[in-house]
């Protein structure tokens, strides 16, 4: 990231950029589309054009076979009438901004091409990103161009304007009409925005009787409630995995779906990395029901039902002698866990102050309190676990407040409801009957991102601006504030929650920019202007972190409360709800990249499923795809079963976010809604379920159908101890004849020679690289049916294998992209020389030369080549085309494509360096998209001729191996064998 250019802080700048865009795009059709878009209804949008499908134009002109220029199309150049400073056509610029999920902000850098955001990266200087991102952040940019977004203000189903709305609102929210506001309720998504908090204060002052409720569909309240139980105040726990040698995850997916996972992954993998056989390595224990990424990384994993985790924690606490006294152990958390608990306890005790015990957000508050006690007893508090005050308000009781809101609605106390963001009608506990309750209010105002269930239930339907379109701010989990600056003026009529809230609170329309800027300048006083610029440039506001809160628990008193709060697990089936790795709580359901990103564990695409253990499947007599009928307290859903090896028995894991009823084109009829099962009491874990085989079955589609390595040396794996004893262990795992070539080979000793090393010890298999690659390289989405036929297009795929028994397997993951073989089998078979080697060791793929015999793909032993079987870009909206990276050709049907180490980035940096008079690129200057996104820093890319480059150093490790080396393909991508650090006691 060589330069961060801040956006012109005038609110209208974005608009100007946007206006300039069509000129830059030189696309009259596009201009027409924009104009029409602002005039007419969205139904008109179903036009399919693929004008910018560059290669398609080639096809169209084929008839003229080279004579195209006889009738050369007149192509206009439309320069600006007035120049725009800072904008150089064709030169991407980068802006720092932030995105808030679950109330916590993460810093991002967004790349813009000619005024349109095209690629999201992490902000290297933001402590919760450190340059990396997760898959969802990568996909945010596609959400911006989602053609099914809520676009225009509606009253009921008829089109209206913001003026109309504000005209009504200024009256309805005037003291004359609303009085003290006791009839007003605001329901907003969890926010850590200081500006919004200030606006909320103004609103409360204006309407003391009104209530403002914040909620989370995927709730983290339990953790904070647990802290409240332990320390008397709701605190946010921060686990410093980079200081912990032993980590115990109790139903905690801190590497996966537990909120913002980038930082924990960064920290964890730092302790996991093995540079020499002597390096230390942390040890991870996991106890969980569903198989998560955290469980996959674990050195020891024990499968227990979610409701049994409390008992296990209690057993652990007892073993650790937390209370110093007698502890009541609940039930039997499973046969295997006894040995597990004692081994874990021993390990923890040996690493006092250098260990972490972490409970998942799904676990009840008592478990979190118990875990806080354990950490305290181990001396971890203050070392590896610190507490701060939470960044969200009402941190521990949002569900109760939502319930209160629903009750108020039902009792008719509420006249006006304002929903700011989210989709409460779909995500709130079903027993609240929120959609039904809303009808009791006189006026319902909903500001939503898409025309979702909540939008449909509202009277005033307001389009919410995308995070890249609006000013805002937010705090990272540790309190560090970021200003969220827009990268483009709203494409449609969207406004942010902050703008609407401010208008309602102040009784006048205000721009988001003014609200945010005036809040922060008021905080700074003197050097406000300079600090504002710096905050925008840095992507965060220096010095806003919260101080560490003192946290000390009175063990016996807390234990008493814990024992009171913990119940023994009930027998019978239980249901666990988890956020989907793709759709999350449904907010990414219309994001095609996320739908097509396979679930990291099940590899399921375009669906959710009811995950059950193999034994449970046998018991129920079901196979993958057979319907299950799941009943909880009289509520029932039907969902297709999927066998998840390593899942706890008698437990069903259901992912949220599917089966939406009011939804865009992407998520139409995708998956099964499990939301009807969620209740206030069983919002995350529902016990006492009745699970039966249902009638019929359903087609589930995965990107990987075979899950065993068939004893082949694909992912090489060993225990750390083994590696220490025999550092050359992996060199002997594959026996192949001497790799002698008939040919002399080519000299690759000069200049840049690109190579990649992927550390399988670090890789957590999270998909960030997959989506980053999709975004960078204009990779099409093909849809469920095409994936079923085996035609997914991902250039990098995340292979996942199970090893060991079906009941208790271990998992290894392996990112698999083009290996850039020096002796590439694909090259010699191409009849038209469309794929040949470059002087820098790249396996070039010239799409415009390819005729599509698919021979190269057949002959690729790694099967990483992707063929455009159909026109996969056909029918995508003009607006969605704006997401394309202009530096990468959009491939037409009939051509082969594959990873090329982001050659466009290599070229860009090489040209830049040369223009600056530099002879060589520095290591790390060129980052492939996958490398840049990877939170585990498992991927290293660079010049292997430079002995000091990161990739060269990794390749020098003894763990380094070439996949299928016996074929003598001499791949440039090599893997570093996977190490685990098992506890000898449990081995």
């Amino acid at each position, binding site marked *: 990231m060589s330069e961060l250019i801040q956006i012109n802080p005038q609110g209208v700048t974005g608009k100007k950029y946007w206006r300039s865009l069509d000129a830059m795009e030189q696309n009259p059709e596009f201009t027409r589309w924009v104009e029409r878009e602002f005039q007419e209804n969205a139904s008109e949008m179903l036009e399919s054009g693929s004008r910018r499908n560059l290669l398609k134009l080639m096809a169209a002109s084929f008839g003229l076979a080279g004579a195209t220029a006889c009738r050369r199309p007149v192509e206009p150049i439309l320069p600006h009438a007035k120049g725009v400073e800072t904008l150089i056509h064709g030169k991407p610029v980068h802006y720092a901004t932030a995105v808030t999920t679950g109330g916590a902000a993460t810093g991002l850098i967004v790349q813009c091409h000619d005024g349109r955001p095209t690629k999201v990266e992490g902000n290297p200087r933001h402590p919760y990103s450190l340059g990396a991102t997760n898959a969802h952040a990568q996909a945010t940019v596609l959400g911006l161009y989602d053609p099914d977004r809520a676009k225009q203000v509606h009253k009921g189903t008829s089109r209206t304007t913001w003026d109309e709305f504000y005209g009504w609102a200024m009256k309805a929210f005037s003291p004359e009409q609303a009085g003290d506001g006791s009839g007003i309720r605001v329901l907003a998504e969890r926010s850590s925005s200081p500006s919004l908090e200030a606006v909320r204060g103004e609103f409360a002052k204006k309407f003391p009787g009104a209530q403002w409720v914040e909620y989370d569909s995927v709730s983290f309240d339990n953790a904070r409630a647990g802290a409240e139980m332990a320390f008397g105040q709701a605190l946010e726990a921060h686990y410093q995995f980079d200081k912990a040698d032993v980590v115990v995850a109790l139903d905690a997916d801190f590497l996966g779906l537990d909120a913002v996972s980038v930082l924990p992954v960064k920290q964890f993998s730092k302790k996991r990395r093995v540079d020499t056989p002597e390096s230390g390595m942390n040890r991870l224990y996991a106890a969980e029901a569903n198989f998560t990424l955290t469980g996959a990384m674990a050195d020891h994993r024990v499968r227990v039902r979610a409701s049994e985790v409390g008992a296990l924690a209690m057993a652990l606490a007892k073993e650790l002698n937390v209370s110093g006294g007698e502890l009541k152990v609940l039930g039997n958390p499973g046969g295997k866990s006894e040995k597990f608990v004692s081994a874990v306890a021993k390990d923890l005790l040996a690493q006092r102050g250098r260990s972490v015990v972490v409970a998942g957000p799904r676990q009840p508050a008592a478990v979190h309190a118990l875990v806080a006690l354990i950490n305290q007893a181990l001396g971890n508090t203050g070392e590896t676990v610190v507490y701060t005050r939470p960044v969200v308000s009402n941190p521990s009781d949002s569900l109760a407040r939502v319930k209160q809101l629903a009750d108020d609605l039902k009792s008719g106390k509420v006249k006006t409801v304002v929903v700011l963001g989210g989709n409460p009608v779909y995500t709130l506990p079903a027993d609240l009957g929120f959609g039904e309750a809303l009808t009791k209010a006189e006026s319902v105002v909903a500001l939503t991102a898409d025309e979702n269930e909540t939008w449909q239930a509202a009277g005033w339907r307001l389009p919410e601006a995308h995070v890249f379109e609006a000013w805002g701010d937010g705090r990272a989990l540790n309190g560090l504030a970021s200003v969220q600056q827009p990268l483009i003026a709203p494409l449609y009529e969207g406004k942010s929650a902050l703008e609407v809230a401010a208008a309602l609170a102040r009784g006048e329309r205000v721009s988001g920019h003014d609200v945010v800027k005036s809040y922060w300048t008021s905080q700074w006083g003197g050097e406000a202007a300079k600090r504002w610029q710096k905050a925008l440039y840095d992507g965060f506001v220096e010095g806003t972190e919260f101080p560490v809160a003192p946290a000390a628990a009175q063990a016996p008193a807390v234990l008493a409360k814990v024992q009171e709060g913990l119940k023994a697990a009930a027998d019978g089936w239980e249901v666990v709800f988890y956020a989907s790795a793709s759709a999350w709580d449904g907010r990414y359901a219309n994001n095609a990249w996320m739908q097509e990103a396979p679930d990291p564990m099940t590899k399921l695409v375009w669906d959710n499923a009811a995950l059950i253990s193999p034994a449970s499947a046998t018991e129920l007599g079901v196979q993958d795809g057979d319907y299950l009928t799941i009943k909880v307290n009289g509520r029932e859903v039907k969902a297709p079963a999927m066998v998840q090896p390593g899942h706890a028995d008698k437990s069903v894991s259901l992912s949220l976010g599917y089966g939406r009823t009011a939804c865009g084109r992407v998520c139409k009829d995708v998956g099964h809604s499990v939301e009807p099962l969620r209740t206030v009491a069983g919002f995350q874990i529902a016990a006492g379920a009745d699970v039966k085989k249902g009638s019929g079955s359903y087609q589930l589609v995965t990107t990987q159908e075979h899950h065993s390595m068939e004893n082949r040396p694909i992912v090489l794996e060993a225990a750390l101890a083994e590696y220490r004893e025999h550092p050359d262990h992996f060199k002997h795992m594959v026996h192949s004849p001497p790799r002698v070539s008939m040919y002399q080979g080519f000299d690759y000793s000069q200049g840049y020679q690109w190579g990649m090393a992927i550390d399988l010890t670090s890789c957590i298999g999270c998909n960030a690289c997959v989506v980053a690659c999709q975004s960078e390289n204009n990779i099409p989405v093909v849809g469920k049916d095409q994936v079923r036929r085996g035609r997914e297009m991902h250039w990098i795929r995340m292979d996942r*294998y199970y090893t060991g028994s079906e009941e208790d397997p271990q998992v290894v993951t392996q990112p698999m992209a083009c290996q850039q073989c020096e002796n590439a089998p694909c090259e010699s078979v191409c009849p038209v020389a469309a794929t040949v080697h470059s002087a820098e060791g790249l396996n070039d793929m010239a799409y415009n*030369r390819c005729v599509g015999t698919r021979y190269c793909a057949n002959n690729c032993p790694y099967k990483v080549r992707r*063929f455009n079987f159909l026109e996969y870009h056909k029918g995508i909206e003009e607006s969605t085309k704006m997401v394309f990276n202009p530096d990468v050709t959009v491939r037409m049907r*009939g051509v082969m494509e594959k990873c090329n180490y982001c050659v466009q980035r290599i070229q860009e940096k090489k040209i830049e360096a040369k223009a600056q008079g530099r002879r060589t690129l520095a290591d790390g200057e060129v980052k492939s998209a996958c490398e840049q996104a990877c939170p585990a820093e498992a991927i290293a890319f660079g010049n292997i001729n430079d002995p000091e480059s990161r990739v060269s150093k990794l390749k020098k490790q003894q763990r380094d191996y070439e996949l299928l080396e016996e074929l003598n393909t001499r791949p440039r991508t090599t893997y570093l064998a996977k190490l685990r650090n098992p506890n000898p006691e449990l081995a």
Partner: protein
Amino acid sequence: MELNPPLVTGGMTYADVTEKVAAITEQAPPKQWYVALGISMLLAGVLFASLGYLVTTGIGVWGNNSPVGWGWDITNFVWWIGIGHAGTLISAILFLFRQRWRTSINRAAEAMTLFAVACAGIYPLFHTGRPWRAAYWLFPMPNEALNMWQNFRSPLMWDVFAVSTYATVSALFWYVGLIPDLATLRDRAKTRIRQVIFGVMSFGWRGGARQWRHYELAYLLLAGLSTPLVLSVHSIVSFDFATSVIPGWHTTIFPPYFVAGAIFSGFAMVVTLMVTARYVYNLQNLITIKHLENMCKVMLATGMMVGFAYGTEFFIAWYSANPYERYAFVNRAFGPYWWAYWSMILCNVISPQFFWFKRFRTSIPVMFVLSIFINIGMWFERFVIIATSLHRDFLPSSWGYFSPTIIDISTFVGTMGLFMTLFLLFLRFLPAIAISEVKGVLHQQINEQKGVAH
């Protein structure tokens, strides 16, 4: 047992031979011909519709996927090319070996070659994602604008040369053989239009002794050229697979194995067609049981070779101790495509064993049914080699499965329609039996009989 049964029976004269063969082209064809042509043309129409849909929509209309980049397309290509081989074999190799029994079947067999190669040629062209580019990029034409050339190291490039050479040489060979017979038709022609058409087509052939001298040498040379050519074509087709790294493909046995398989399937197709034509046109005296029996012997021999190759593959996979190779072959027999494998074994290895018995070798219904079995089996052989090798190769993560779509089926059935259309038109309008060659055989036979009589 007669040592050397006559190849032309029924005491036919030269004029009888002319009359018998030429009359077919001069009289109105039987009703069945029209029915058959109607059906064939309909199917050929299905082919063109399928190809049109394919070109306008993409390869995705077929079942091909990743990892099975080639499915029915290349299977059908190899199958059709293989079928073609019998024609060349009969006309060239048997000619060189002075096998006189070839004469009554070589013309139709050569025509079959041409039409089979035409059907085969459709696939390499249309299996590409962008056939409009493949059409001219695959031939080395000077290209100043791009400065790009083909990759002559690619087996597909070799295919381009092999198949186009094969098609050209076969057409030349076939047409050279036709010239004297076209002259016969010209001289028999009753209408001006037939006179002109056959007159033009026969180039003014007179059958002068000097013409025959050059002609015979040309024919001999073409036969001599076609013999290594026909062996090379299927060898080169097999290189598509043999030079790759995929287990199940990467096999040195492929060239002879493919050639044997090609002859096997080609003879089966000749039997299928000749038995039918013989029945419809009453050609029992020209295509005798002796001809058919000889073909059954060839099928038995080549079937055994193919069976031996199947066994060798398994042995080598085991002997190589290469786990990927071993798996590939175990997977063929016991994996998801076990049914294809065992269909292949049943049709190709078991069914020709009946030909050990003269009773079956000389039974028209038995050989007809078995020839169809062999054609099916040989199709499965190619499918097994292509699809089962591809669907599970090195990394289990990329394993997949191939299922054909309706367009796969319609394209394949369509090529049969095209083949039958061309073949029926050939039967109707051109001498289906080499008149002059049969007369040569008859002359020799007459002399031999005289010799016996003396």
